């Protein structure tokens, strides 16, 4: 507006174009910055630990050279762990922001409405009670995630789905599923606390490539599908009728989006457990840094990755004891959740 008055001849079209370029620039620089921080964080995570390895050793190990000591510590222990941290963070960030955008409510993230709980309960049950192998566990976790999202949707359907009802019903379902997880854990023959923490709050302890690989493949396959739907997703935010008038096949697009988002969440949960609040936090944080306009999918995926990476690093070394990553994100994320509730109460809800 200020610009318009000063120059006097700037048309509306130019103003819009200007602000669009400005926002696109900001978006690009934020994404670039986030990627940069993640890469730096990744390398620092690989270098720092009980033993310090200089960057040269770490890079050597990454490129397959044989460095005494570092090959085991960095290559076998730290590298899979840091990779899974980033992969799981990307998945949670993507899945979370998808649900938040689609349901037009920041509280409707998969970890609050029970989808992560469903995947986690299924995984815990499959491992402890049915003693299934890795593949079967993942399949079961994904099936459960999809079933739970369908169940929550059907139960909250009563002449249309009201967002608030869906969230409350999701909370109820999550309470039930969490108690199933807890039950499975009490049944575990040898009571292993670290393993149990994975299914209660999410943990990256003892990560190997066997766990990281499926998440990687899922991300490669599903993320492009989801990002491809981002334009349709943005349009469905205008309401179903407007979106279909603009040429979106609403039901088809929604089905694709739900299945891919749940798939991402379930793969990540099967590998790392339901890391608390990451799916919920990534979207709102990304929306704060990127600003209005444009899809939030990529920025919030990056925010998710950064959150998990940093939280896991802090959990391992910042405190006297080693905390699983989910405890750190849970303690950090909770105040933000409460802040968000307060803010939503004041100003109505949006991302």
């Amino acid at each position, binding site marked *: 507006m200020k610009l318009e008055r000063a120059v006097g001849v700037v048309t509306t079209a130019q103003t819009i174009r200007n602000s669009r370029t400005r926002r696109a620039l900001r978006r690009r620089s934020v994404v670039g910055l986030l990627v940069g921080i993640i890469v730096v964080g990744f390398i620092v995570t690989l270098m720092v630990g009980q033993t310090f390895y200089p960057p040269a050793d770490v890079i050597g190990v990454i490129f397959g050279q044989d460095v005494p000591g570092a090959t085991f510590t960095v290559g076998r222990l730290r590298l899979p762990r840091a990779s899974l941290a980033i992969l799981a963070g990307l998945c949670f960030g993507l899945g979370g922001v998808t649900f938040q955008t689609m349901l037009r409510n920041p*509280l409707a993230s998969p970890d*609050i409405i029970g989808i992560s709980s469903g995947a986690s309960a299924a995984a815990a049950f499959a491992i402890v009670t049915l003693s299934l192998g890795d593949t079967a566990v993942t399949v079961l976790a994904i099936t459960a995630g999809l079933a739970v999202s369908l169940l929550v949707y059907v*139960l*909250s359907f*009563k002449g249309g789905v*009201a967002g*608030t*009802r869906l*969230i*409350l*019903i999701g*909370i*109820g*379902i999550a*309470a*039930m599923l*969490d*108690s*199933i997880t*807890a*039950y499975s*854990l*009490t*049944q575990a023959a040898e*009571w292993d*606390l670290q393993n*149990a*923490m994975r299914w*209660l*709050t999410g943990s990256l302890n003892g990560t190997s490539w066997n766990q990281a690989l499926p998440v990687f493949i899922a991300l490669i396959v599903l993320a492009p599908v989801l990002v491809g739907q981002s334009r349709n997703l943005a349009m469905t935010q205008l309401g179903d009728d407007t979106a279909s008038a603009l040429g979106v096949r609403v039901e088809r697009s929604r089905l694709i989006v739900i299945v891919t988002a749940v798939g991402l969440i379930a793969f990540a949960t099967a590998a790392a457990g339901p890391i*608390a*609040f990451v799916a919920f936090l990534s979207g709102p944080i990304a929306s704060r840094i990127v600003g209005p306009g444009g899809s939030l999918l990529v920025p919030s995926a990056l925010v998710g990755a950064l959150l998990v990476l940093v939280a896991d690093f802090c959990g391992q070394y910042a*405190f*006297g*004891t080693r*905390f*699983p990553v*989910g*405890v*750190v994100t*849970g*303690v950090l*994320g*909770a*105040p933000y*959740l*409460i802040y968000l*509730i*307060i803010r*939503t*109460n*004041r100003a109505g809800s949006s991302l």
Partner: protein
Amino acid sequence: MTPVLPGAAIVRRPRGLRSVWLLLALVVVLGLMLASVTIGSREVGWADIWAALNGSADGFDEAAVATRIPRTVLAVLAGAALGMSGAVMQGVTRNPLADPGILGVNVGAALAVVTGIAFFGLNAAGSFIWVAIIGAAVTAAFVYTVGSLGRGGATPLKLALAGAATSAALASVVTAVVLPRNDIASGVLSWQIGGVGGATFVSIQQVVPFLLVGFTISLVSARSLNSLALGDDLAAGLGERVALARGGAALGAVVLAGACTAVTGPIGFVGLVVPHACRLLIGVDHRWLLPFSAVLGAALLTAADVLGRVVARPSEVDVGIITALIGAPFFIYIVRRQKVRAL
């Protein structure tokens, strides 16, 4: 104002009918107590049960029964406390979704106890109870404040969300406090899911005075809750000091929930389900509703405990898990029944 309490249209029930229901509920509780002593993961003959009830504990069978007795007593007490606490909370907040579990009060109490053990060297069960009550009170005040900010005051949705968020947050903190401590780490799960399995007569003796105080405060405020149910303005018009009445009743509910959690760990959904069932049977008069909720709460928790011992023989399922499995569908049913506007 939307009518908050379901069944509010039916104001008066015949007094005789209510007495019959109450009597029937008491009989059910007695029956369940008997079942709770008889049924368990170990099959025990009647002779041994009789011997154990008379204080003998010779042999495995009698010893098994001897541990079931304090457990049964605790289940009855905790169920009564949670049931009445839930009824009072629903009255105070005028909110059909209020429950010490859903509002995060139980987890708050658990966090206070765990923090006390880990950082302040608490070890006597007697001091747990004070700490738990303080934790419960702080959490309740916090959740109510967060939930009632903004437009429309403390609507069911906002309160439930604030409660769920606070529970999740506090549960994370409980884990963070307990995990580094190997001496209490074996109890992480027991501070996340409540159970009555570890009951002893010593801990019961310590908690009983607190529960009595809580029951008394709650029952005294029953009449005020009736006026509060009409709305703050009308209650003030009827001569009720609204803030005082609300604070007093809330204190009763918090003492009950906190003291109970100090012994059993957080048990959810009993306080949600029971008052709703009671309203269907005996109407909305709090002078009847509160004692009836206590009796039915005792019945529900005892039944859930017995069920937990039977469903997965030879192992046991903690009563907190059973109540969540029973209570969550009920929660969903209540949410579905509410109009969207009210949410």
